[in-house]
């Protein structure tokens, strides 16, 4: 075993490397740190942990046994690391099935690639059909982008379990030669991926040729390349070869990590030296590398190949002893090894060990597919049949079909395929399994199977439909196989007793019998299928090809009654094509005669003409006129009834010269147009620069500048430009300007913000002197108080607040001042004196009711933490939790408790958190805290909690805030085996962090690590990396993907200044945000829609509408618009203030393409109403019946101007008569009902019964809520119960909300019960907000919550919302986003 000796030496050397050569391999330091960091943290796993599992697949070692076609069963498994979440594990499968089951008609390449990418991430699998479709498109292209090429290469390996490995090898070669010609740039990551695919497909290639090819392209192999080369030799059992590679690596100072050890285990095993394989574990330990799940898995596979179950058991026990958990795919690998080498008797034992962790469904599916390669279809099926499936049968139609497809591909006996299909059907695992399997068979072109299958279906009493035979007929037709066609018909008629329908014959059978004459066809059918009527279908077929003459002939030869119901339309079509009037005339006359003989009253000509009118009237009325005049000329007659019908086809407006001038009725435009109108600029609409310019202008003209100065002062004060503000104030002072209280208040805010207590207090006094009744906003006072506290003037601050409270003498609603209160209290907490915090708390409480959120209570705990008094902090935490159901300063507390290892207290905090924020959120908080404390192993344990789903949003949240690369690397390590994590996103964070730290070498090393993990870097990640390298003037070793116009969400935060802007918005400081915007505007950069939207929203919340409008206009100029909710917010503010002009102006400017998002009519309408111009707007609608009146607006109008009811009644009448537009009536009903004029509303409903399905109740509901009128809602429910389910649900939702509003939770709960039990509605039909309010109310009053809030759609969560303020305390990000309560299957 000289190889072993050499290796041992090698490892001793490589251990030295870590000490001596570390500096020499600076670019790889990150890697080294991860891999040899064992001394510091023995559980850290190497980045390449997953690498080996593929090669570990056993097949190739034993060429002597098993069919060679099947030995490619290996590979595949490692891809489970790259999978992403499934909305519904099942939904995916189904759609994958459907997709691949039919031809693609319109699919562009980009879309197809994106779909493949999603499939790979979600299911670890690509549909072969999708891939071949893309490949054929790719061949046509002149240039293929690098990332697309990388994706395609990866797909040719284990991601394609549907295909046999031999087919995959062919596909890989084909693809690679295409790419060599047309890929934009093949870099090292492509070659490494190709190597990986070769390994997965057990492809025997020439490694030195591979290296030479690379070098010819000027590419240097990297660590990953060598590792995979070594893996290749080990896969072949060639330890010598592997050793050479390792020596090479050593010579190049490349680190040797766990991946390599794992590979060696396989190498020894394949070389039949299991002792050495086992010995590698020792080698690893002595090199300070901890064996990982992969290591144990590889070893277990080695023994499994030999059928040594005892040893397998021992290896698994050994892993458990070292608290290494094998994943489900690991176990499946072992199963695979057993199956391939004929030891299937042990499989059940291994299957029993499966953990069934998240993602198991697809693991099992992929494993089952690979077991088919291993020649074990029965075991594959058993695995599937034992899976947990969605309860909904409708979601199961794809289940098991991938397996069936593979069996069909392998040409498994039809009996087996049939048996599985029937079993799936009978066990209700997939009620449509038989039909779906048939689809797979047909798509695979196995018509022999299909026929057998159909006969079996018919015998089993399963509904066999004519269209099931069409693909069989069509296939024969394509090959010109007449006998095949007739045989298919025979199967249909004789074996399955299915009617040969007209469409079967005209659509598929007859087109396929091209070579035969009509006589031959009729002859064939007469003898073989006497029961099938062929002449009429033949006639239809001939007519459809425009041949009236031939049809006529056919008809005369065979004396069969022609069925005009099926031939009239083809006859019209035939005439349209041929314009052969003589033939038509003869035909019609013949038909007429025949029918007359039969004493039939059927109007042959009339029926024909009716169809002809239908065909001609819109496209060629002249031809219609011509046809009809010819018909008149030839004496053909149509019935009265037919004439009437034709008249009706023209909508009662038959033109004088029949068939002409019709299209005039169509196409009236219902859109409103506004006249253009210049919006005059008033100083209050100007921004700072405009104001300053205006000031200069006025000064130069020696005009009155006071107004402008006043605006300027306010604006500068808002933007904290102290100097300029003071200068302007001095100017105003000179002119004995009379300040208002508000102006002083603005100055006060400015001074507080810049920390000038004295001046702030001075202007406060000024404000009082100038207007004793003026009351400064409470938040300004609280800010000032907070400032005073930081300056050590607590007593004064408290006294100030107390006197302020006395003066105001009314409680404020502290809705939007949470942060101000928090800052003030936090300032007090800095002192470390709990009584100081308490005093300030009490003083603020005098102003109004403090809403005790986690944020606001934070200082209560923090004051103890600052003194390092953890017991005190815990007590404060518990008090706050008991009293207010909040978890103040949770993260900080958790960190402290971890550091002091106070598990009891830690448990208390986590329990409290779980109660409020759910288990997943709380565990994530805990895991992050562990990472921050450097305890990766614990964090990993938490992330791997069985049954817990990954939360990418939380991971991103953490990764974005982390400033230490070590912590981010720890996060990557800890989440390595977690299903569902977007690892590219995390790596992207790491790359950007290295960028920020100015370390391009490490950033580049991250890319290599990604290759090792077989994870493709996304275009945005590559762009970031390229930007960092370019910044440091380093070569970029890959093609930089072009920026796509539509930016992924993750990238919008890339602009650091924009990040600052968003931060200011979060801190509720729009002025600073505006300042930040000005800075960005000064550069070339553009503000994203995201930032714009938040900025506008934040201004609107402060009622700074004018500024919001200006910014919105700015967006419109760029043909952009704010997010729809923000736009609606803006318009609702404007319309409520009755600002008709601005609303109209903005609507005109609103980008055309996005108008659909906003209900403009509604806002315009309510603007008019608010402006007291109701009659005006109503008149507009009265004048133009084409306009669609907004219902909500109309109700609002009626409420403000009840005198207009008669006019609306008239409108309703008119609309009902003319166009059936129900809006006015619906609105009137809503109004009447809301006013409790039930009798009138009932009568209205009787008058206009058509509105009953279109009633809208939201206006009534809001009215009931405002009036606190539960009874109105009750009435509403009773009235509508029969009519409209959503409306009833809405009314119930409001009822729940109203009860909660009144703190009557018991009544609210009764409503919930009523909804479920009496009304028969599901909770998901209710408004979830109402349920949440109820849930919160119950929790706060300490009652149990006896219902589960249904899952919310993601879309709704992502809308920007004022309530959701991202925050550096974890609690807030959890609030409002419930942990998913999805049912896992």
């Amino acid at each position, binding site marked *: 075993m000289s190889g072993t000796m050499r290796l041992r030496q090698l490892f001793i050397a490589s251990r030295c490397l870590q000490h001596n050569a570390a500096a020499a391999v600076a670019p790889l330091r990150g890697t080294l740190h991860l891999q040899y960091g064992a001394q510091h943290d023995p559980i850290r796993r190497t980045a390449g942990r997953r690498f080996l599992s593929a090669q570990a697949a056993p097949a190739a070692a034993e060429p002597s046994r098993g069919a060679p076609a099947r030995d490619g069963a290996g590979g595949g498994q490692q891809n489970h690391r790259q999978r992403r979440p499934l909305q519904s594990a099942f939904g995916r499968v189904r759609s994958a099935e*459907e997709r691949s*089951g*039919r*031809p693609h*008609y319109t699919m562009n390449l980009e879309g197809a690639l994106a779909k493949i990418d999603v499939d790979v991430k979600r299911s670890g699998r690509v549909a072969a059909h999708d891939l071949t479709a893309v490949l054929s498109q790719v061949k046509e292209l002149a240039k293929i982008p690098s990332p697309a090429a990388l994706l395609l290469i990866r797909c040719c390996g284990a991601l394609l379990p549907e295909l046999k490995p031999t087919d995959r090898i062919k596909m890989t070669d084909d693809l690679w030669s295409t790419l060599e010609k047309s890929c934009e740039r093949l870099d090292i990551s492509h070659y490494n991926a190709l190597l990986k695919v070769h390994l997965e497909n057990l492809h025997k290639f020439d490694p030195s040729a591979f290296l030479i090819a690379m070098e010819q392209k000027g590419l240097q192999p990297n660590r990953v390349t060598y590792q995979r080369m070594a893996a290749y030799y080990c896969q072949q059992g060639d330890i010598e070869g592997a050793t050479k590679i390792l020596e090479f690596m050593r010579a190049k100072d490349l680190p040797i990590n766990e991946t390599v050890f794992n590979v060696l285990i396989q190498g020894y095993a394949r070389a039949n030296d299991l002792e050495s394989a086992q010995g590698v574990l020792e080698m690893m330990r002595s090199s300070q590398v901890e064996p990982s799940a992969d290591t144990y898995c590889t070893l277990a596979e080695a023994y499994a190949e030999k059928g040594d179950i005892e040893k397998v058991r021992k290896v698994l026990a050994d892993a458990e002893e070292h608290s290494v958990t094998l994943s489900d795919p690991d176990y499946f690998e072992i199963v695979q090894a057993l199956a391939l080498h004929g030891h299937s008797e042990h499989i059940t034992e291994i299957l029993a060990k499966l953990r069934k962790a998240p993602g198991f469904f697809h693991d099992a599916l992929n494993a089952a597919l690979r077991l088919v390669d291993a020649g074990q279809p029965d075991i594959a099926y058993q695995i599937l049949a034992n899976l947990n499936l969605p309860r909904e049968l*409708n979601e*199961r*139609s794809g289940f098991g079909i991938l397996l069936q497809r593979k069996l069909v591909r392998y040409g498994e006996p039809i009996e087996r395929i049939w048996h599985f299909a029937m079993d799936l059907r009978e066990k209700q695992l*997939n*009620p*449509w399994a038989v*039909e779906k399997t048939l*689809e797979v068979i*047909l*798509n695979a072109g196995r018509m022999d199977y299909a026929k057998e299958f159909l006969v079996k279906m018919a015998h089993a009493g399963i509904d066999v*439909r004519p*269209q*099931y035979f*069409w*693909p069989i*007929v*069509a*296939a024969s037709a*394509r090959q010109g196989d007449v006998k095949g066609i007739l045989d298919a018909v025979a199967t249909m008629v004789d074996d399955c007793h299915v009617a040969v329908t007209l*469409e079967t014959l005209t*659509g*598929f059978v007859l*087109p396929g019998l091209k070579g035969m004459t009509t006589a031959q066809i009729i002859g064939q059918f007469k003898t073989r299928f006497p029961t099938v009527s062929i002449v009429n279908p033949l006639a239809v077929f001939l007519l459809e090809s425009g041949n009236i003459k031939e049809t006529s002939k056919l008809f005369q030869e065979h004396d069969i009654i022609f069925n005009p119901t099926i031939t009239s339309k083809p006859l019209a079509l035939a005439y349209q094509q041929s314009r052969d009037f003589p033939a038509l005339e003869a035909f019609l006359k013949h038909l007429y005669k025949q029918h007359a003989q039969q004493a039939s009253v059927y109007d042959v000509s009339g029926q024909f003409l009716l169809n002809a009118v239908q065909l001609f009237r819109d496209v060629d009325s002249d031809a219609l006129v011509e046809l009809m005049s010819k018909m008149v000329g030839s004496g053909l007659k149509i019935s009265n009834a037919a004439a009437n019908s034709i008249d009706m086809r023209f909508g009662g407006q038959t033109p004088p010269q029949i068939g002409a001038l019709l299209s005039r009725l169509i196409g009236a435009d*219902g*859109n409103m147009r506004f006249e253009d109108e210049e919006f005059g600029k008033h100083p209050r609409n100007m921004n700072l620069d405009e104001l300053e310019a205006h000031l200069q202008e006025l000064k130069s003209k020696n005009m009155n500048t006071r107004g402008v100065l006043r605006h300027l002062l306010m604006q500068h004060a808002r933007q904290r430009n102290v100097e300029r503000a003071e200068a302007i104030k001095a100017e105003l002072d000179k002119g004995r300007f009379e300040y208002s209280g508000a102006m002083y208040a603005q100055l006060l805010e400015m001074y507080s913000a810049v920390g000038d207590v004295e001046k702030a207090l001075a202007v406060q006094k000024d404000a009082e002197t100038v207007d004793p009744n003026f009351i400064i906003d409470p938040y300004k006072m609280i800010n000032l108080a907070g400032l005073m506290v930081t300056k050590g003037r607590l007593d004064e601050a408290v006294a100030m607040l107390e006197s302020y409270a006395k003066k105001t003498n009314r409680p404020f609603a502290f809705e939007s001042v949470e942060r101000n209160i928090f800052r003030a209290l936090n300032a007090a907490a800095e002192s470390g004196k709990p009584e100081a915090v308490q005093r300030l708390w009490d003083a603020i409480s005098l102003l109004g009711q403090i809403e005790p959120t986690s944020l606001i209570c934070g200082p209560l705990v923090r004051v103890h933490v600052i003194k390092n008094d953890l017991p005190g902090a815990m007590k404060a935490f518990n008090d706050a939790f008991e009293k207010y159901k909040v978890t103040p300063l949770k993260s900080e507390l958790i960190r402290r408790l971890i550091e002091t290892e106070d598990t009891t207290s830690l448990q208390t905090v986590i329990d409290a958190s779980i109660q409020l924020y759910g288990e997943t959120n709380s565990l994530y908080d805990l895991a992050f805290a562990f990472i921050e404390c450097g305890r990766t192993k614990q964090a990993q344990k938490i992330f791997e909690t069985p049954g817990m789903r990954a939360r990418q949003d939380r991971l991103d949240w953490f990764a974005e805030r982390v400033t230490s690369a070590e912590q981010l690397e720890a996060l990557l390590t800890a989440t390595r085996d977690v299903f569902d994590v977007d690892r590219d996103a995390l790596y992207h964070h790491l790359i950007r962090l290295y960028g920020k730290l100015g370390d391009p070498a490490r950033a580049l090393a991250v890319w290599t690590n990604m290759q090792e993990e077989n994870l493709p870097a996304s275009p945005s990640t590559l762009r970031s990396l390229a930007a960092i390298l370019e910044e440091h003037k380093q070569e970029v070793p890959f093609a930089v993907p072009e920026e796509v116009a539509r930016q992924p969400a993750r990238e919008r935060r890339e602009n650091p200044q924009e990040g600052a802007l968003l931060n200011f918005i979060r801190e509720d400081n729009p002025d600073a945000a505006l300042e930040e915007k000005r800075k960005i505007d000064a550069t070339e950069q553009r503000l994203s829609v995201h930032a714009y939207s938040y900025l506008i929203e934040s201004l609107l919340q402060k009622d700074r509408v004018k500024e919001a409008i200006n910014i919105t206009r700015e967006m419109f100029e760029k043909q952009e618009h704010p997010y729809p909710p923000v736009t*609606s917010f803006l318009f609702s503010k404007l319309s409520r203030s009755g600002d008709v002009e601005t609303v109209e102006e903005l609507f005109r400017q609103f980008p055309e393409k996005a*108008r*659909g998002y*906003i*209900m*403009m*009519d509604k806002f315009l309408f309510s603007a008019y109403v608010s402006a007291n111009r109701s009659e005006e707007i109503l008149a507009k609608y009265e004048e133009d019946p084409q306009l*669609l009146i*907004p*219902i909500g607006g109309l109700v609002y109008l009626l409420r403000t101007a009840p005198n207009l009811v008669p006019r609306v009644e008239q409108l309703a009448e008119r609309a009902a008569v003319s166009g059936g537009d129900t*809006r006015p009536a*619906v609105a009137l009903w809503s109004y009447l009902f809301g006013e409790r004029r039930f009798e009138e509303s009932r009568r209205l409903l009787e008058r206009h019964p058509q509105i009953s*399905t*279109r009633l*809208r*109740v*939201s206006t009534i509901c809001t009215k009931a*809520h*405002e009036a606190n009128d539960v009874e109105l809602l009750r009435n509403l429910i009773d009235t509508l119960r029969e009519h*409209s389910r*959503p*409306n009833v*649900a*809405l009314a119930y939702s409001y009822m729940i*909300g109203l009860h*909660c509003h009144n703190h009557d939770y018991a009544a609210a709960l009764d409503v919930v019960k009523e909804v479920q039990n009496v009304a028969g509605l599901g909770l998901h039909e209710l*408004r979830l*907000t109402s349920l949440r*309010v109820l849930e919160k109310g119950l929790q706060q009053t300490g009652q149990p919550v006896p219902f589960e809030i249904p899952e919310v759609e993601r879309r709704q969560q992502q809308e920007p*919302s004022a309530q959701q303020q991202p925050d550096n305390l974890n609690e807030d990000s959890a609030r409002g986003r419930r942990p998913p309560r999805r049912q896992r299957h």
Partner: protein
Amino acid sequence: MTSRGIPRLFVGNIPWTIGHKELRDYFAQFGQIQHAHVFYDKITGMSRNFGFVQFFSRDGYVNSSNTTDHFLEGNKLKVTDMLQEQRSGNQSIQQNGAQQDGRSNRSDQRRL
């Protein structure tokens, strides 16, 4: 084309097993059908998985539109109103009256 102002329904994601007859049978539960058609690929003989349904009366159209989920032999059908597709976005939002009630605008949300 619409018949007497009744919008034609586009039906997508139809299972391959469904022909004209089965499509008609399914939608007949909502009202009398004037026309139901599934498209087939003439070359392969396989369903193209979409089709059209035309009701005789407005009732049938309204009934089927009021049903949110159409499941047929394991697939969730994608049913779209051809009329709405043609109209401008603005109007089609208002057409969706009933659904819109279920959604709330932001001021409503705060009041609850």
